């Protein structure tokens, strides 16, 4: 009985840890900044694919590299996702602050682009993109230096865009058709790829007769705790954290205090995106990696942030754990075992047995969350006190 309880609790916490690490980046981007970033899951996916690439590189190196690759993959996944997030913020989102509906549509579009990019990215495509960037940006830079750019920009911009686009497309087409099949093949393709955890994360720790703690799950729990501590320290213990908290609460006044709000936005968004990358890294330990990976997690992540109370880190933690444990207890059928098998309890046992599958448990959890949000629309930890009314 005790072993069962501990085992159930562990499994619930490990589901909660995955939820939490996925939701952590969103808690910053959505919770603090108020940006609804539907491409958050795709940033995760990029983190996962970064891990895949690093793993392949480690495999080809041989030796002990395949056992240690995750220590290179972790920072790289963070960096790749953070840079991609930075690019997204600078080019799209910063023009849409305070306009949630437009942000929602734009980031959804970006998420579709990113999914298709992963499916079809190949050497010819990368060469085409590099050619485009070189022609367009370098060409424009040269023109701004040597001509009266302000005067000609109205027609020069579209002309440049069209010209460099056409040349880039031609380069793509030519390299695609002339190169070898090996060269022109997509890097990842549309199918799922597998990331094998290093050997020391494949086993588990066994306690007693039946208790099994898989190493990968323990690793994710530890990683979640470390990430939480790091985020907490960054937000509450550093000068940039103070700036972030100030800007997210009152952008206009923060600017009047001398805080460069644009920079703060970029850093906050990059941090949230980087955490999505780490989440992507973490979920590679649990299953295969595919272009649609983001979609599987984004709903759960939003759910955690909303149930926890938007803008509250501690709310996300509690919400992730409660949802994780509830999901496990319902899905594994543990709830049905709590009642003595008498005729009186039969309907309740039947009820819990009915919901004792992963998908049905999710249905019940969603129903519970909807009911919960009717009672407490602001989530578990709504902000309190006089400051709320201001």
């Amino acid at each position, binding site marked *: 009985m005790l072993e069962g309880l501990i085992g159930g609790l562990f499994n619930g916490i490990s589901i909660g840890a995955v939820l939490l690490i996925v939701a952590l980046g969103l808690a910053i981007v959505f919770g603090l900044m108020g940006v609804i970033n539907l491409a958050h899951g795709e940033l995760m996916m990029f983190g996962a694919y970064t891990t895949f690439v690093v793993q392949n590189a480690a495999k080809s190196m041989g030796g002990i590299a395949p056992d240690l690759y995750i220590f290179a993959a972790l920072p790289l996944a963070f960096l790749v996702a953070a840079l991609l997030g930075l690019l997204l913020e600078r080019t799209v989102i910063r023009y849409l602050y305070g306009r949630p509906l437009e942000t929602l549509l734009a980031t959804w579009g970006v998420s579709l682009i990113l999914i298709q990019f992963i499916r079809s990215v190949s050497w010819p495509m990368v060469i085409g993109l590099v050619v485009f960037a070189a022609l367009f940006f370098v060409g424009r830079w040269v023109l701004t230096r040597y001509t009266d750019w302000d005067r000609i920009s109205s027609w020069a911009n579209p002309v440049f865009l069209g010209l460099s686009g056409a040349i880039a497309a031609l380069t793509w087409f030519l390299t695609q058709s002339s190169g070898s099949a090996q060269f022109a093949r997509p890097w990842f393709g549309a199918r799922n790829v597998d990331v094998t955890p290093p050997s020391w994360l494949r086993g588990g720790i066994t306690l007693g007769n039946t208790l099994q703690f898989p190493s990968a799950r323990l690793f994710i729990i530890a990683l979640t705790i470390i990430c939480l501590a790091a985020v907490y320290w960054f937000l509450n213990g550093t000068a940039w954290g103070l700036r972030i*908290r100030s800007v997210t609460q009152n952008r206009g006044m*923060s*600017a*009047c*205090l*001398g805080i460069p709000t644009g920079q703060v936005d970029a850093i906050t968004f990059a941090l949230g995106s980087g955490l999505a990358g780490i989440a992507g890294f973490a979920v590679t330990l649990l299953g295969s990696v595919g272009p649609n990976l983001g979609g599987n997690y984004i709903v759960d992540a939003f759910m955690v942030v909303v149930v926890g109370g938007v803008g509250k880190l501690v709310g996300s933690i509690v919400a992730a754990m409660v949802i994780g444990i509830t999901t496990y207890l319902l899905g594994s059928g543990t709830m049905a075992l709590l009642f003595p098998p008498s005729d009186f309890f039969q309907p309740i046992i039947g009820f819990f047995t009915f919901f004792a599958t992963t998908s049905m448990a999710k249905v019940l959890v969603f129903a519970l969350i909807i009911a919960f949000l009717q009672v407490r629309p602001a989530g578990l930890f709504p902000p309190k*006190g*006089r400051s*709320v009314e201001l």
Partner: protein
Amino acid sequence: MTTTLPAPALQDPMTAPMLEVSGLNFYYGESHILRDVSMTIPKGQMVCLIGRNGVGKTTMLKNIMGVLRSRTGEIRFEGQVVNGFSPDRRARMGIGYVPQGREVIPRLTVRENLIIGQEALGSRGKVQKEVPEEIYELFPVLKTMLDRMGGDLSGGQQQQLAIARAIMGQPKLLVLDEPTEGIQPSIILDIEAAVKKIVKTTGISVLLVEQHLHFVRQADYYYAMQRGTIVANGPTSELTNDVIQEFLAV
């Protein structure tokens, strides 16, 4: 009674006035809010902008801070044209802003609210980890509530915090927008005394928008505004009851 301040011949940072606004025109959409406003704030002086509600005083301050951008006209800070600069850049140049409604950051503690005021130092000074003692001498009440949330303070305490926060950035020009609005009389006197003390000890310039007559009289110069234009100005000593009746009384 309309006497213009002596215009500086040179735009040298040493001799230029702290702030010089000339020919400022501002529109909200199609409505013309500020019409050809010009004003000068000399170094180390306190200038008060008076006028009834809705004549454009706050709009004027927001233009100086860069929160709003004027269509035409020039704003010079220490001789440098700042029209195109963002609010955060102007703050780092040395304009400290205490807006109407205080705008204390609600979910930061009082200490954090004060520390973040140092953002305006930019490259002009060194950021300190602790709040200097002078701040508590000006506003003793803040010392007792350092760990309270800024948003949980009363209106008067928030006002004192907002002024202290601006002072933390060691501004050269302090812009105060109705610091006594909606605040109980005893605290109005505290705030007034603190602002006077700040001007005396630090020698900074102050631009004050105020309805409270006693506070207005503390200033060196006044500008009176009506329907978006400056209609009168001069030393505050010349501010007679007639003028006040005309421009201030509702």
